[in-house]
């Protein structure tokens, strides 16, 4: 009788010094202390990382926004010509359209890339086939799954830093070297509405015929030869605008995403801390109960 009753007490006494390191099996059904501790630690690390990414994104955002503001002037000024000339996309039977999707290479910024891909897919579903030129790895990965046959060119390496005009020019050159003559070219980019919202939007870039056919173009009195130059240059301008604005959107989206991630991690840390404390308390109480029962049992004898 004695030996049986004293056994748990003995075991508890032996286990007591090692208690903190390894939780005894009394807390069956609960996660052990060590497991909770490990999880807490990893969540803390994740919070640190997301927080750092947020800080980096916010500093980049201010630069990106400044670049966006200046680039907007470029794009809008070059579009003023077409507005004054009332250029429209010609209504022809044989339409050959090109869509340039401006995303970037990096993820972890919410749904801005998938927003662009979704808009592209909707456009293709509504208006039939378009050829695609894709800037950025993310949109390429998404669209190559559904519309691989439409893709003509893809560019990578954008989005590391604020896009430069030289980037836009090089892309515009490569696009104008494409073998097919397109009747209209659309640039799809994320329009920056405010720090938390953006919208996938199109900019029109016109073909030479469209520029020539526009009603008020003769008012500018330019020779026909240079219209090709104008078209190439305005494509580069619009592309630069789209890239810079898309970049600003991406940074602000990343800032928000990382902000939310840090907040969620903070919440999780709170919950796990409480769970950890409770479990530790339960383990201690359980051991105390064992010791006391053992002590009383042996005192009775």
């Amino acid at each position, binding site marked *: 009788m004695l030996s049986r009753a004293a056994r748990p007490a003995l075991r508890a006494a032996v286990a007591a010094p090692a208690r903190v390191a390894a939780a005894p099996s009394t807390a069956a059904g609960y996660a052990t202390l060590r497991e909770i501790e490990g999880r807490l630690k990893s969540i803390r690390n994740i919070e640190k990382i997301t927080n750092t990414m947020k800080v980096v994104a916010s500093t980049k955002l201010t630069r990106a926004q400044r670049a966006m503001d200046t680039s907007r002037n470029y794009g809008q000024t070059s579009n003023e010509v077409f507005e004054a000339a009332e250029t429209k996309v010609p209504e022809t039977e044989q339409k050959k359209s090109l869509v340039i999707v401006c995303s970037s290479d990096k993820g972890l910024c919410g749904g801005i890339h998938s927003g662009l891909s979704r808009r592209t897919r909707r456009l293709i579903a509504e208006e039939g086939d378009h050829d695609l030129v894709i800037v950025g790895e993310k949109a390429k990965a998404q669209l190559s799954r559904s519309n691989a046959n439409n*893709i003509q060119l893809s*560019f*990578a390496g954008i989005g590391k830093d604020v896009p430069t005009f030289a980037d836009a020019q*090089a892309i515009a050159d490569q696009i104008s070297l494409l073998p097919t003559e397109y009747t209209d070219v659309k640039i799809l980019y994320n329009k920056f509405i405010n720090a938390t919202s953006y919208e996938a939007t199109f900019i029109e870039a016109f073909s030479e015929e469209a520029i020539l056919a526009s009603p008020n173009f003769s008012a500018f009195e330019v020779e026909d030869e240079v219209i090709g130059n104008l078209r*190439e240059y305005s494509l580069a301008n619009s592309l630069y605008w789209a890239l810079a604005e898309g970049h600003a959107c991406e940074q602000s989206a990343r800032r928000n995403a990382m902000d939310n991630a840090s907040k969620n991690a903070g919440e999780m840390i709170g919950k796990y801390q409480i769970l950890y404390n409770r479990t530790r308390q339960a383990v201690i109480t359980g051991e105390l109960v064992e010791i006391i029962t053992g002590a009383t049992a042996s005192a009775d004898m």
Partner: protein
Amino acid sequence: MTAVWKAAGLTYNRYLAIAARAARRSLKEDKRIIAERRGETDLKFSKWQNGKAGEAQNLEKANTAAMAESAS
């Protein structure tokens, strides 16, 4: 009469880029370093055919090569 750069096979954008590069290089040392960073590109691209991506190439080199070809 066509311009000389057109005859050399350059596009207008390329012509502008070269002119801008020349202008940047003629700046003073401190300003030039800042300005030259605006002219850098490091893009790669690949051509797609029938839903398959071609080999990734350096954009700058490919542009130069394509224009040299159209020069003749």
